[in-house]
């Protein structure tokens, strides 16, 4: 940064012009000094020689006749002629160095006599001589008659005169340059003003515009500027013209922006859904619309002091939109939020990045789906009950078995008691132990049934899929086995936990296993095959996901309908056997826990359902995990 770059444009132009002028002036001055002065000196010397030569021509005859009076007259003519300032003295001498005439009126100066005496002259010569206080160019020109020299003209050119001329020339130049500089001073000043005055007013208007004061466009002074600009036709006027256009456009666009802001503001305020404006990195709530305060029961001031995570079971990824679902445009569905009074609210979350007050923010739109979730639960419950109903015979059998054993034991004990016989202690022990164990078994089944059939809310907890599988296996494992189907479990002991709900997960597995069983039975019936049915349940980890495969060797699914099987009310079963709600509900549950379910099937050979859940690593909201 030079000091020059700190200057205003006006001063820059001004100083540049002035600088150039001065530079040119200096160059001219130097030019004058070097070229003009030397050429002037040369020119004057040449004139001196010219005068001397003309004197030489005129004096020839007088030298020959030794007419000293005429020679003196000639000499004085040159001395006091047109060039009297230049010619300091003039001497006419014969070829032996005797002075015939000269212009020394009051006396000889310096060594002139000896110089004249010494000089045998044959050529024009110029010497530098000191004459008293002055310096002279001593010019010698021979006077010839034929080829012989008969005398010489010796002339002194006053150096001081030459110097005076040079000084005079310098003064003229100096004053001329000063005048030019002065003129350029004013011109550049005017030029700078001419250029910068409209710019300065543009700057002023820009400042006003920056402050949002668009009223100046209609002000008198602005109109004057507009009018003034029309009288010129240069870059400045074009700039100003563009500026005026830009300003007008800016005003219009600002107005429409304001309108649009108003529109969106009113949308934001009056929209049916709670909307939050959240800071991008910290998820601090910056703003919330009235619906948000209404739904969650917090005041706006309270919300602004909270982060989004304080409101519900969220993680960063869900807000940032990594799990964006293009179909529903929901980033995260069925997220449980809590009102101020602790009541849970289920919401779908829509997020979109935006910029608000120069900060990167996320607009988080939420949709209250609590009712929908409730309806889902009821539907799931209904489907579960339907399953249970289907399974009721098997389950009854399952309970009957211990009951039979208990009955047999108790009848045996009654019979002994009626016979008044003593029960052998080992038998008694065995019967009691057996009864107890059968009661426990029955109770366990009932308990599981109870817990299975319990209607649960939508919530998430840390679940180990293996536990679920084992639990389901306990309910229906025996039934499956009884139907001559081999149910084998291949569980990965080190499987990670997932965020889901035990009961719902069990329902999923229950459904899929019963479907598999049905498929196997169907195949056996249809093909009348004897090879045993086989269901394999596998768990495994893959890429931070927990996977469950349920594989059967049933009839398989026609590839043409694999896409349709997850649709509601689609069923392949005969009328009355299924509602066609099984697989869609399963898919809904899996999706609720951010899981995916896929099917691959080979007709006649079997089907594999593959479920993948994201592994649970840690949580932003551990406290909510314990609440249900």
């Amino acid at each position, binding site marked *: 940064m030079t000091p020059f770059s700190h200057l205003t444009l006006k001063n820059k132009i001004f100083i540049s012009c002035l600088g150039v002028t001065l530079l040119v002036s200096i160059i001219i001055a130097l030019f004058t000094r070097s070229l003009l002065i030397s050429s002037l000196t040369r020119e004057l010397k040449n004139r001196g020689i010219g005068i001397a030569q003309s004197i030489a021509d005129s004096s020839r005859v007088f030298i020959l006749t030794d007419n*000293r*009076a*005429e*020679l*003196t*007259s000639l000499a*004085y003519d040159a*001395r*006091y002629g047109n060039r*009297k300032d230049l010619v300091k003295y003039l001497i006419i001498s014969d070829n032996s160095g005797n002075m015939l*005439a000269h*212009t*020394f*009126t*009051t*006396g000889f100066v310096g060594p002139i006599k000896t110089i004249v005496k010494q000089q045998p002259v044959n050529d024009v010569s110029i010497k530098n001589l000191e004459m008293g206080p002055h310096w002279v160019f001593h010019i010698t020109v021979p006077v010839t008659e034929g080829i012989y020299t008969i005398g010489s003209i010796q002339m002194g050119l006053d150096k001081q005169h030459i*110097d*005076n001329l*040079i*000084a*005079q020339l*310098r*003064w003229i130049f100096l004053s001329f340059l000063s005048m030019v500089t002065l003129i350029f001073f004013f011109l550049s000043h005017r030029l700078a003003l001419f250029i910068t005055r409209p710019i300065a007013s543009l700057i002023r208007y820009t400042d006003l515009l920056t402050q949002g004061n668009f009223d100046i466009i209609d002000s008198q002074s602005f109109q004057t500027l507009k009018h003034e600009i029309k009288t010129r036709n240069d870059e400045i006027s074009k700039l100003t013209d563009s500026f005026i256009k830009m300003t007008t456009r800016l005003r219009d666009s600002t107005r429409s922006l304001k309108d649009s802001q108003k529109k969106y503001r009113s949308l934001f305020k009056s929209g049916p859904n709670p909307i939050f404006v959240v800071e991008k990195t910290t998820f601090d709530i910056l703003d919330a619309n009235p619906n948000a305060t209404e739904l969650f029961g917090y005041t706006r001031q309270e919300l602004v002091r909270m982060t989004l995570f304080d409101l519900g079971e969220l993680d960063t990824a869900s807000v940032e939109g990594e799990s964006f679902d293009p179909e529903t445009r929901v980033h995260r569905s069925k997220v449980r939020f809590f009102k101020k009074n602790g009541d849970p609210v289920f919401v779908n979350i829509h997020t979109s990045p935006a910029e608000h007050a120069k900060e990167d923010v996320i607009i988080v739109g939420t949709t209250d789906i609590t009712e929908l979730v409730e309806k889902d639960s009821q539907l799931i419950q209904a489907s579960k009950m339907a399953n249970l109903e289907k399974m009721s015979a098997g389950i009854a059998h399952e309970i009957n078995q211990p009951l039979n054993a208990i009955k047999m034991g108790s009848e045996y004990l009654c019979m002994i008691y009626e016979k008044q016989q003593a029960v052998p202690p080992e038998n008694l022990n065995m019967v009691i132990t057996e009864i107890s164990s059968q009661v426990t078994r029955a109770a366990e089944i009932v308990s599981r049934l109870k817990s299975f059939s319990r209607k649960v809310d939508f919530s998430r907890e840390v679940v180990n899929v293996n536990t679920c599988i084992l639990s389901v296996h306990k309910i229906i494992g025996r039934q499956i086995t009884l139907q001559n189907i081999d149910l084998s479990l291949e569980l990965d002991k080190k499987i990670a936990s997932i965020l889901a709900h035990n009961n719902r997960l069990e329902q999923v597995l229950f459904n899929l296993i019963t479907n598999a069983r049905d498929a196997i039975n169907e195949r056996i019936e249809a093909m009348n095959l004897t090879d045993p049915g086989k269901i394999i349940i596998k768990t495994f980890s893959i890429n931070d996901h927990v996977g469950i495969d349920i594989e059967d060797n049933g009839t398989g699914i026609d590839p043409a309908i694999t896409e349709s099987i997850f649709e509601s009310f689609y069923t392949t079963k005969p009328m009355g056997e299924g509602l066609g709600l099984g697989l869609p509900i399963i898919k809904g549950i899996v999706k609720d826990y951010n899981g995916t379910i896929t099917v691959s099937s080979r007709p006649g050979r079997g089907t594999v359902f593959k479920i993948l859940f994201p592994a649970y690593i840690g949580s932003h909201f551990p406290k909510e995990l314990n609440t249900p």
Partner: protein
Amino acid sequence: MTRHRINHWLSGALLLLCVACSMPPETGSVQDSGNGISDNEIVIGSSLALGGHAGYLGTQMIQGAMSYLSHINRQGGVHGRNIRLVVMDDGYNPSQCLYNTQQLILEKKVFALFCYVGTPTTVRIIPLINEAGIPLVGMFTGAQRLRQPVNPFLINIRASYYQETQAAVDLIVKRKGLTRVAVFYQYDEYGFDGLRGTEIALKHHDLVPVAKGSYIRGTLDVEAGLTQIVRSDAQAVVMIGTYDSCAKFIRLARQQNFTPLFHNVSFVGSKELARRLGPDGEGVIVTQVVPPPSSDPAREDLPGVKEYIRLLNQYYPDSRASFVGLEGYINAKILVEGLERSGRNLTRQSFIRAIKSVNDFDLGIKNRLSFGPNDNQGLDQVYYTVIRNGNLVLLP
């Protein structure tokens, strides 16, 4: 070189400041005293025509002057110093006059110059006078160039040609009532000066010269000029020339029966003109700047003229009194008066100051002589003389 340049700038600046007080560089180099002055002698130089076509003028002039100077020297000089006059002949040739003057100043180291004769000659040496700062006293010429602008070194005594031609025109137009006036002049500084004076004087009467004729100095080629003037049928001819040319002109005119009023100025050398013309000179008018001297002192009524004739007769017994001689005599008187007034400690400056201080000085010729700070001409009177029977008599 640098110092030189600074000096130039400085001198340039000083030049601006002292334009008003700038002096000609020559004055600075003048040496005040020692030139031409010794314990018992003052050397005065004079270059004038002693021979040739104007030789009469110079001879008469120098004899008139010498009469008085010899008289003074005989009485013991001025403040104990004799006045020695170094006289050189220039033959009315300006170049020779210049050379002589240089010789007088440089070689003879004269104190002052004195009694120069002729306009072209005297005008030629003005630069030398300026350069040397040497006073020139008493010139036998009425040239305007020697009077305006005022030059302190040039001390004129006689009336100017302008005054003489003015008087001539007055006489011709007013007294004689003639309107057809021609001018015959010598083609040099002298003639031009007279021509200009005549033209100026005629202009006052709303007249212009009806014809102008000229001749070259030193020649007698007057025929062409005469022809022109004769053709113009002029009633009067104002003649600005020397006696030989003018005499020839008048004689030739009379031979052609062309007889206008011939009017000469003082420089013509009136006695010589009258002598040469003889009977042809009858009625020719000559303006004079000194009163006419008669050859016999006994018949003279003016004491100054009387003294001149007496001293001339004493020192130059062969010579006859003349207007020119009287002028030389008056010049010498003024020179001596200046030297007297300067005192013993004589310098050129003090001499010039002394002469300028001469005021209302009685020369014994009725008209008194005065100089002033801006008046470098002592006498203003013009006399009309007419040739009657070969003699010059005052016009009544």
